């Protein structure tokens, strides 16, 4: 008897499941749907929903179905394997997304770049970007990926603390060292510098800036394109020596090597250290932890009067992000979505919503840029538009991983500067010999940014 009841119950449940089941939201929207999937991270999702609304406004006959998740990449992988990907996609940054190109999954965007810009019919879409930001998403002269944000990286300082002590922002490396000494002597226990030690790549911003300022654009390009011997050049050894020196002279807060990014940034906000390397996302990342009246300002990594790179040159990059899958149901709608999402109008909304700047010309005039980011844009102006950007970290993830590891070991004094470059050159050699590694050889575009651009 009891088993009969059980069977009846199970049968009942089965029948009910036909009526009460999850619905596929996308199918509910009908046949004419463009689907966008986006990495959900520090930027939140509002900017995505705004772009969907704008798309539907421009194309009332098409519904926009967009969603995001921190694990968007893992969640959509089975769909890519099944040949049923979304129409526009951004997975995540720190994975080797070039494998999608190698397997022929990424649609070229060259035709999109030639179409008139959304809301600015007198310009092509390609002409609306900051100079130089499109190149990192190109391969073999064709455009495959488009950037999401324009990041300026350097050393952030606590303005209130600097004003209070009368500390001056240094321009050259010698002045920087003198400042560190001054802070150490007179700062009442404030350490001159801390960094996100668990992820040495943040200090890499200082290291690579030193390399650029010593060796200039030619060296940067040789390193990015894996030219034999480039990673063992004397400028790299010198920059490694200068990096270690900061530890030897006790300018770095003790315990730094194990701090995660949020820990180090929090400690900096608490005033235990005067400076920290980071990109312009710092302000929005820490916005909820900012003490009242805290003012953060950026300075370029100080340079050398006799160096090949400008003393005040500053790192600015726009990592490749968005792409349109070849197998998508409507690749042309996906491209149209990008044209609208990366328009001047929505880029201005992005600044207001997220606080970060997208590399779209004019967008910074249309919205109020937060003071920290403003100081970064000003630093680009002050440098006469001389920005630089190492592209190996997005082109060769394995080289970037080794850079991270070897730099951590260098800062920990586990290896010498000579051994550091030896390891880097060995990894470059490994990639040169690896037939699976996609090789890039493009020169960076002249990234001189005019005042009007910012």
């Amino acid at each position, binding site marked *: 008897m009891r088993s009969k009841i059980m069977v009846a119950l199970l049968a009942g449940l089965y029948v009910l499941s036909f009526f009460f089941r999850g619905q596929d939201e996308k199918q509910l929207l009908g046949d004419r749907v463009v689907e966008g999937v986006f990495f959900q991270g520090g930027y939140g999702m509002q900017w995505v929903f705004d772009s969907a609304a704008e798309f539907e406004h421009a194309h009332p006959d098409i519904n926009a179905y967009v969603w995001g998740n921190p694990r968007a990449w893992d969640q959509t992988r089975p769909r890519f394997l099944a040949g049923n990907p979304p129409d526009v996609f951004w997975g995540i940054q720190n994975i*080797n997304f070039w494998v999608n190109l190698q397997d022929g999954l990424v649609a070229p965007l060259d035709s999109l770049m030639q179409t008139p810009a959304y809301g600015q019919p007198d310009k092509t879409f390609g002409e609306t970007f900051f100079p130089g930001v499109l190149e990192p998403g190109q391969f073999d002269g064709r455009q495959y990926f488009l950037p999401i944000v324009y990041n300026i990286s350097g050393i952030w300082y606590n303005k209130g603390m600097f004003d209070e002590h009368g500390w001056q922002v240094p321009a050259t490396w010698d002045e920087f060292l003198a400042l560190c000494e001054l802070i150490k002597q007179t700062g009442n226990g404030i350490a001159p510098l801390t960094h996100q030690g668990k992820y040495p790549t943040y200090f890499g911003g200082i290291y690579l800036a030193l390399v650029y300022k010593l060796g200039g654009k030619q060296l940067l390009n040789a390193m990015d394109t894996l030219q034999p011997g480039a990673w063992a050049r004397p400028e790299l050894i010198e920059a490694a020596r200068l990096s270690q020196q900061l530890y030897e002279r006790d300018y770095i807060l003790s315990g730094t090597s194990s701090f995660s990014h949020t820990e180090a940034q929090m400690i900096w906000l608490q005033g235990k250290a005067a400076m920290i390397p980071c990109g312009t996302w710092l302000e929005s990342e820490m916005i909820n932890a900012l003490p009242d009246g805290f003012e953060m300002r950026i300075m370029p990594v100080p340079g050398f009067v006799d160096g090949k790179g400008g003393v005040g040159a500053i790192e600015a990059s726009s990592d490749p992000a968005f792409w349109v899958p070849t197998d998508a149901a409507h690749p042309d709608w996906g491209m149209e979505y990008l044209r609208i999402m990366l328009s001047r109008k929505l880029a201005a909304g992005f600044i207001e919503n997220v606080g970060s700047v997208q590399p779209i010309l004019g967008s910074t005039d249309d919205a109020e840029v937060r003071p920290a980011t403003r100081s970064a844009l000003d630093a680009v102006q002050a440098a006469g538009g001389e920005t630089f950007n190492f592209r190996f970290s997005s082109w060769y993830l394995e080289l970037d991983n080794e850079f991270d590891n070897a730099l951590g070991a260098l800062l920990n004094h586990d290896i010498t500067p000579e051994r550091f470059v030896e390891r880097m050159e060995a990894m470059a050699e490994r990639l040169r010999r690896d037939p699976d590694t996609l090789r890039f050889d493009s020169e960076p575009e002249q990234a001189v940014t005019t005042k009007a651009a910012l």
Partner: protein
Amino acid sequence: MKLQSDARAGWLFVLPALVFYVTFLVVPYALAFGVSFAKWRGVSLHLEFVGLGNFQRMFGDPFYWKALYNTAFFTVCTGLIVPVMALYFSVAVTRKLVVGARFFRITYFFPNLISQVAIAVLWWFALNPEFGILSNFLRLFGLADLPSWLGDPDWARRCVVAVKVWAAVGFYMVLYISAIEGIPNDYYDAAKIDGAGEMQSFRHVTFPLLSEMMKVTVVFLLLNGFGTFDLVRIMTDGGPDRATETLATYIYENAFELGKFGYATTIAMSLFIITFSLALLSLYLQRKEAVEY
């Protein structure tokens, strides 16, 4: 005739479990075996047979050897430390050598109620050199110049071992306690009459009767150690400078970050061969009948 229908009924009962086992275990393993001979980026169905290429690459990959070395280091250290500590504590608790034995029994088992991820996060905080509980505790005793724990390659390795031991001891203690409590009191009484103290009872009664259980647990620990992933992934992410990289974290890096699913599967095959051999060893050790009193 009777036998045959019994067999048929048997198959019927086994079938559902067998279908699951074959679909979700045997088939994926067989596929993985195939993938380990191919170049596969894991984003499309484009697969290219490369013969022994992946294996050649693996044998020449210094990071692979480093990961293998670290994995073996963690495994051997926990395999040695955990049984000794678990034995020590379980004897102390069962032979009532400490006050509050019940309290310790529960306390030591506690980490087993928490997930590995929570344990990793907990210790990651505790080991922070600036505001972590460990450094601050040591500073109470006037110790300065403390290491940066997870920021230092040598200390990071030791810390991972320590946390693994902390998390595992309680479980093995429970196993040993039940084994010790199974030993009839007569044995101890007899030993006492013969003039044996607590040390001698342990040497001649407890330890010999526990040795079977010890062997099995050591193999368990070895199997467990080779799969080390979650603790390391969260506490150190394999760093600093790959000092705590294990085979499992290196597989993850290759598959999910670098897009080298084929190569990652090859490394996974090598891990499979190691753990499979250990499993065979455990079967071999368990072939003897258990001690009966």
